[in-house]
């Protein structure tokens, strides 16, 4: 059986682990194939084939041969395209980048690919690197990635009585239904927090738009807190786990 031809593709490196004496085990996202794992032979000693390109959160052009069935793919060489220097020089940005990478890996494991996630991850890492203090980035990433992954929060109508939400008045987030309800159907509580119309509008925009289209989004502190809380409850309920990186976000 012939070996597949090597592919050259931009890749976002998510994790790098030492493997044996001088090799690296690399986890990366590509636009076409999603999350993959591969071995870069001799990468720890290489002064030519892998110069500073196999590091977490880097965007690199990788030349690799895809895996046969369940084997690891073989990474031949790489070239650094974007190091995202801002993520290294600010721990807050580094923690936020770790969160979005873990969420992307959880929502889109190997075999589940979507080109929109690669673009979202790439744009979000760049934005975090360039404007690390912007706490909106991990929130908008989470809302959009969950929506792409099939866990979009239904903000159009009451998930209990079915009445359309017209953008007026408070509503309640119902985590087991993955949507909002009117106050008549569900009372506010810690597990069913209330949301202002402003928060619902903003969350809808975050779920439907790419990062570039949200440039002008300006949210009040209260609104941001509501959205963060709803996304956290939604994520933990749908993914049935707590992300390791979530505790480093604040």
């Amino acid at each position, binding site marked *: 059986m012939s070996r597949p031809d090597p592919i050259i593709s931009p890749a976002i490196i*998510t*994790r*790098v682990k*030492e*493997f*044996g*004496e001088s090799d690296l085990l690399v986890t990366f996202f590509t636009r076409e194939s999603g999350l993959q794992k591969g071995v870069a032979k001799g990468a720890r000693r290489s*002064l*030519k084939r892998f*110069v*500073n*390109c196999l*590091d*977490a*959160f*880097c965007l690199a052009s990788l030349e690799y041969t895809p895996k046969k069935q369940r084997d690891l793919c073989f990474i031949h060489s790489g*070239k*650094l395209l974007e*190091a995202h*220097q801002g*993520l*290294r*020089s*600010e*721990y807050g940005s*580094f*923690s936020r980048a*770790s*969160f979005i*990478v*873990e969420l992307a890996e959880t929502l889109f494991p190997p075999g589940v690919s979507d080109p929109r996630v690669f673009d979202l991850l790439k744009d979000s890492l760049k934005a975090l690197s360039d404007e690390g203090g912007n706490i909106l980035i991990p929130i908008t990433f989470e809302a959009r990635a969950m929506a792409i992954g099939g866990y979009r929060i239904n903000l159009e109508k009451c998930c209990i009585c079915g009445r359309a939400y017209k953008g007026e008045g408070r509503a309640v987030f119902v985590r087991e239904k993955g949507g909002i309800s009117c106050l008549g159907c569900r009372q506010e509580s810690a597990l069913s927090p209330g949301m202002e119309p402003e928060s619902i509008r903003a969350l809808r925009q975050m779920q439907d738009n790419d990062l570039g289209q949200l440039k002008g989004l300006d949210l009040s502190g209260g609104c941001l807190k509501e959205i963060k809380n709803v996304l956290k409850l939604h994520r933990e309920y749908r993914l049935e786990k707590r992300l*390791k*990186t979530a*505790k*480093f976000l604040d």
Partner: protein
Amino acid sequence: MGIYPPPLEKLIEQFSRLPGIGQKSAARIALYVLKSDRELAENLASALVEVKDQIRLCSVCFNLTDNDPCSICRDQSRANGVLCIVEGPGELLAIEESGVFKGRYHVLHGVLSPLEGIGPEDLKISELFQRIEPEGIKEIILATNPTAEGEATASFLAKSLAEKGLKITRIALGIPMGGDLKYMDSLTLQHALKSRIPLQS
């Protein structure tokens, strides 16, 4: 049931638990041990037990040692006041082998890595802060690796130590000895040019 007799299977299983050693390598090493003199097996077994019994962390710098404090912390000829921060004992050893640093060390035992669930409280960072005043530390050299985690750890420490009024330095980053400019990436070249030094005539 395995293809080897149970005691050999057991040895292969134990070797394959070590990092970087797969089933095949474990079988190869186990067969080598079996073929060698009894002395090799006895020495190996006693060395393994000895290392677990005798090696511990130095209570001052957290390097591996069989005597507390370690030989570096006990050495009166070394300069006090300059502390070199490293990720682990391997990095400390590499700097020691170079013979150019004659100050004191502090071993963090890892780097910040939220993806692995490692935060500041999982490293020897509070212990570092506790050393600063009693030891009269004047300069901190951040010698973590130039990886994303190493750099983020260095940035975190630099920021946390900023209000202590210390001189905080980072080891130089740039073109490695024996490297080739043609193959260097933009970030490395950027660092190398930023950190250039005048040549003395």
